[in-house]
């Protein structure tokens, strides 16, 4: 019993350790940028100097000059102050914008994860898969930069099915945003998955399972899925990056006050601390996603556990 528990828990702890190391290395990179790039880190006192309490903080040591303060800044994710929002800390702004975007991004990622597996499964089982694949191949040729504006144009401008601008109180707005975000990434993921299913079909173990008289569904889900899980993991993580890039385009076109629009604004205002803050957000988001997807697949496929 104990050995079973330890074998189940070990990969989890291994991955957690790897995640923590990667997270710390990411923080080191961010703080190295602060240290070496002039103007990348703006401490509180730079702004307090203009007010009456300047004397009270004049003796405060600079960033990185005291080990204690540096460590405190490091672990409290203190990225300093933004240039253009003088009363706000970078981490507060970033977190506020991110929590806005996460409302629909989390749903989109979950839908992408489950539905791409399900739809690809149904396409592989379908007799008309050639037509489906042609459709997805055509869809994949259209860049997100063109697809997202076209969809917004038709749904909101031409047919007025959804509001012209994003309305946080409207459920249809949320559904529309998720739909627009997912069209291209889901098409790509399904296309890749269907091709992968087909390549796996010619393997000996599949033919053997078929010869034993097992049903197609059982072969696909019980035998083949475990083996293509590793490829799916790679595809999924690449596609999620595309989804994030699509989010920038969507937020800037549909006026959603999330982190995509926030990042664009910070770039146009040349607000370096805020840009670095957003970069930290995206990287940590991706690392967390990578970690959670790896854990899910590690328990699905024992082969991955052994390779770790």
């Amino acid at each position, binding site marked *: 019993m104990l050995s079973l528990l330890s074998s189940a828990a070990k990969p989890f702890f291994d991955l957690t350790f790897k995640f923590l190391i*990667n997270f710390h*290395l*990411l923080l080191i*990179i961010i703080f190295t*940028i602060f240290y070496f*790039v*002039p*103007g990348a880190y703006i401490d509180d006192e730079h702004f307090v100097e203009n007010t009456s309490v300047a004397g009270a903080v004049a003796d405060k040591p600079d960033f990185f000059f005291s080990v204690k303060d540096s460590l405190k800044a490091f672990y409290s994710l203190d990225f300093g102050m933004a240039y253009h929002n003088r009363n706000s800390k970078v981490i507060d702004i970033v977190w506020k914008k991110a929590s806005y975007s996460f409302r629909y991004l989390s749903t989109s990622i979950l839908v992408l994860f489950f539905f791409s597996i399900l739809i690809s499964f149904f396409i592989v089982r379908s007799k008309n*898969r*050639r037509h489906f*694949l042609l459709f997805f191949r055509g869809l994949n*040729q*259209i*860049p*997100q*930069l*063109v697809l997202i*504006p*076209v969809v917004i*144009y038709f749904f909101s*401008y031409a047919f007025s099915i959804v509001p012209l601008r994003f309305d946080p109180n409207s459920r249809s707005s949320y559904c529309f945003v998720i739909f627009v975000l997912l069209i291209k990434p889901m098409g790509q993921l399904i296309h890749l998955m269907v*091709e992968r299913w*087909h390549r796996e079909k010619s393997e000996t173990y599949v033919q053997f399972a078929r010869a034993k008289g097992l049903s197609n569904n059982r072969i696909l889900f019980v035998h083949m899925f475990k083996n293509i899980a590793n490829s799916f993991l790679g595809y999924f993580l690449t596609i999620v*990056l595309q989804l*994030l*890039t699509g989010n*920038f*385009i969507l937020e*800037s*076109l549909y006026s959603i006050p999330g982190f995509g629009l926030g*990042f*664009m604004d910070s*770039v*146009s205002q*040349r607000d*370096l601390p805020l*840009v*670095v803050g*957003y*970069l930290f957000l*995206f*990287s940590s988001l*991706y*690392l967390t996603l*990578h970690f959670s997807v790896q854990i899910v697949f590690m328990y699905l496929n024992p082969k991955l556990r052994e390779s770790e």
Partner: protein
Amino acid sequence: MRKLTPLFLIMALVGFSFQHTISSQIDPSRIFLSPGASFWGGTDSLGRDLLQRSLRGAGLSLLICLFSLILTYVMGMVLGGVLSFWKRANHLVIFIVDVFDSIPNFLLVALFSILISRGFVATSSANAAFSILVISIALSAWPPIARYVRLEILQLKGKDFLNATIVLGGSPFYLARTHYLRAIWPWVKLSAAHSIPQFILIESVLSFTGFGMNSDYATLGYLIFEGWKNALIYPHLFVVPSVILCLIIWILTWGLQETKELF
């Protein structure tokens, strides 16, 4: 013919990008004209021919893409080669590649372009903006290439014919030129060709978000963004550059696709 079409397209568009007169043909009497016999793509807010501007923008995008492709592969190959001879670099390389992979390419390019442009007095100069774009795209795209080159060289390292070359007095430069480079050259050619559409898309998204060149040297992303602002009243402003971008991506991928069909 299928393989040559993308090449001809690239050459034609890059040649077209050197037509400096297009952006200066401002005529207030013909603003926002719809596509017709005289102007196939219509005109923009300053009366310039939109089709010509879009084609020139496509040429500029391709030019940026080609320069960044060359820089990326040179950096990737040199660094990958150097790292393969540095035994303690294993964890460092894996970490660097992991970190680079964990950030969307577009964001990395954005960060690099901000960091690089701080060194310039002003990025209004076309050459400076062009160089910043090329360098920042290359800086964000080199790690996977370095990783592949390093792995290939590590795989080749123990081979008998390489040991024989070393015993016979072959210099490291000779080894790199005749054995390592020849081994990775087919992959480099294929991978570089497949990266062209991807690089164009990165460049377009960058121009779309305001990192690209100024309006005189507008690339396709910038034209799409500008067109979107007036898309409700003048849809052709958005449609023409979008269609050209789609066509270019389609022709480039079509030319590179394998003819063998899966189904």
